[in-house]
């Protein structure tokens, strides 16, 4: 087991929000007390399997510019910032989460991640599930189920344990409760004005990926929801009723909360719906917790996620339009991380779908650097002015 003495906190540590900073310190204690830790990167990771192994799953998606130049010693520059940042944290040993993970779990999602995992595996044991490219064919669903079975076996072997169906079912129940708590929080954004700023919502979702204790996290979200609901009912929303209601879709936005989210809200808008992989796109799907074959039910739930790595991915457009109606959005902003080919290409169809429904749409392509802040601000402000 690695010792904690050599651990250096990242330079950005002081800039993290309080919850993330606490998580960094917590992870040390957690491991010292014998805790099991499994890192994951993508919303396709079947977290119930990790939970049922008695391990804590922690999100390792890189969201900071700090380690990108280090990553570029190995990776090409014209690669998505999330992939570079994720690898960069492992490569520069600046992330205690990565350092303390017993195993990193990835999936064959986009080309960039898939090949990066081969390099990541040189630094840290990385288990890659083969995600199919679609879900309309029977053998794709069966193949994915077998991959989830493979992950279960790998974890059983790693920890010398048996993962029981009871444990999987219990994990599914708890994860479903978490998803319902998240959806209840989102639901508060349906009112005019919404109960929260989008930056708060996005930061809350992002912070959730650093929680080791699912039950404690569920409880804290349920409390937050009650608190915000009560405040909103007392007329205490921090948002003006005239703020333009924005749905944000596209790539994961954890690394651009301030760059895109805060810019929207500084220029007369408010993010009422986060349609990305840590937001409603993913959390809207539940596991059939009473299914006779619980592991299969878990696998099936994850395959429903509408990521642009899937082809075809038509359900994504339908889901986004449904959310646009539910949250009464004034405009849709698609955020594409530089060099994310799948979301970038798919944006042509999303643009048609959204504009076809009579809703203004704008795509912004950006990364984690500050270089394009001026142009981004102009684009976002101008878009909100047209609404």
């Amino acid at each position, binding site marked *: 087991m690695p010792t904690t003495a050599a651990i250096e906190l990242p330079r950005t540590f002081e800039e993290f929000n309080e919850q993330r900073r606490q998580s960094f310190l917590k992870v040390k204690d957690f491991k010292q007390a014998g805790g099991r830790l499994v890192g994951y990167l993508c919303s396709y990771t079947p977290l119930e399997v990790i939970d049922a192994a008695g391990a804590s799953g922690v999100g390792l998606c890189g969201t900071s510019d700090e380690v990108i130049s280090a990553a570029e010693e190995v990776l090409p520059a014209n690669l998505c910032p999330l992939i570079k940042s994720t690898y960069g944290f492992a490569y520069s040993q600046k992330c205690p989460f990565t350092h303390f993970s017993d195993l990193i779990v990835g999936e064959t999602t986009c080309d960039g991640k898939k090949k990066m995992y081969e390099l990541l595996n040189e630094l840290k044991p990385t288990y890659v599930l083969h995600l199919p490219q679609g879900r309309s064919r029977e053998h794709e669903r069966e193949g994915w189920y077998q991959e989830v079975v493979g992950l279960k076996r790998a974890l059983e072997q790693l920890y010398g344990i048996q993962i029981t169906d009871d444990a999987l079912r219990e994990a599914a129940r708890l994860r479903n409760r978490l998803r319902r708590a998240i959806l209840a929080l989102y639901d508060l954004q349906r009112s005019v004005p919404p109960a929260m700023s989008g930056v708060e919502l996005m930061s809350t979702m992002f912070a959730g990926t650093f929680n080791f204790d699912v039950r404690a996290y569920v409880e804290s979200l349920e409390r937050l929801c009650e608190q915000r609901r009560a405040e909103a009912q007392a007329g205490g929303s921090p948002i003006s009723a005239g703020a333009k209601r924005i749905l944000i879709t596209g790539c994961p936005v954890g690394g651009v909360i301030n760059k895109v989210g805060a810019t929207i809200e500084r220029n007369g808008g408010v993010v009422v719906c986060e349609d990305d992989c840590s937001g409603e796109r993913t959390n809207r799907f539940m596991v059939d917790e009473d299914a006779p074959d619980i592991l299969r039910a878990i696998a099936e739930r994850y395959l429903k996620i509408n990521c642009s790595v899937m082809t075809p991915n038509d359900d994504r457009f339908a889901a986004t339009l449904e959310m646009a109606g539910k949250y009464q959005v004034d405009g849709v902003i698609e955020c594409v991380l530089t060099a994310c080919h799948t979301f970038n290409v798919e944006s042509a169809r999303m643009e048609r779908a959204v504009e076809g429904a009579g809703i*203004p749409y704008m795509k912004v*392509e950006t990364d984690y650097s500050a*270089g*394009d802040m*001026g*142009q981004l601000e*102009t*684009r976002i*402000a*101008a*878009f909100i*002015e*047209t609404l």
Partner: protein
Amino acid sequence: MPSGRLGIGVDIGSTATKVAMVDAAGELVRTELMPTGFSSVDAAERARAAMEACKGERYLSTLDPRVVATGYGRVAVPYADKVVTEITCHGRGAARLFGPGGTVIDVGGQDTKVIRLRGGRVFKFVMNDKCAAGTGRFLEVMADRLGVSHDELAALARAGEPTQISSMCTVFAESEVISLVGRGEPRENIARGVIESVVGRVAALVGSAGGMAPYYLTGGLCDNEYVVERLGEKLGAPVTTCPEARYAGALGAALMALELG
């Protein structure tokens, strides 16, 4: 003698600062043009001095001015009553100059924008990516490299045969031009290639915005007849412009200033 409100628009672009003044009836009464230079704060100050000088004129001194700032230096105008993005201002100014519907192409020093108008309002726009391809800056750098002025570049291009300049990036395109010069390619042909590169890039941006005729050109290239002509040919429909189109952003800002209480 007119009285009432005076609307002033200050458009601080990356290359030039434009000022437009409209009277209470919304008529354009005066424009000013000056280089932005190093500092937008300084440009804002010079724009203010130009406005103050106008106030000495009896005609303008009776009017109560309101100021809207726009352009990339819009936040550097401390005396502005309101700040509005250049997209909205260009759309508004172009709608006044040309009509309430159509596609406005603004080739600026640092950004190229395609703005689609419906009922005098912006309903869709696209901007070039972070780089300078298809902007006024690209033409400036290439004219400089060929040792000619902006106007001479157009005159040269008209006489030339198209030469392919394939690099989108201004820095790489400059290297490409240097190697063409080295190979002894006539200057006329290179100039033509430079203009074709900008026209092609702008036309692609129009396509990505779903732009449709009528087309209007605003911004610094509106007095470049050759660019206007080639752009029209590329788009398959004439591109209309006028001398005031350079001030479209400032004009739109001035019209919005008039609406402020």
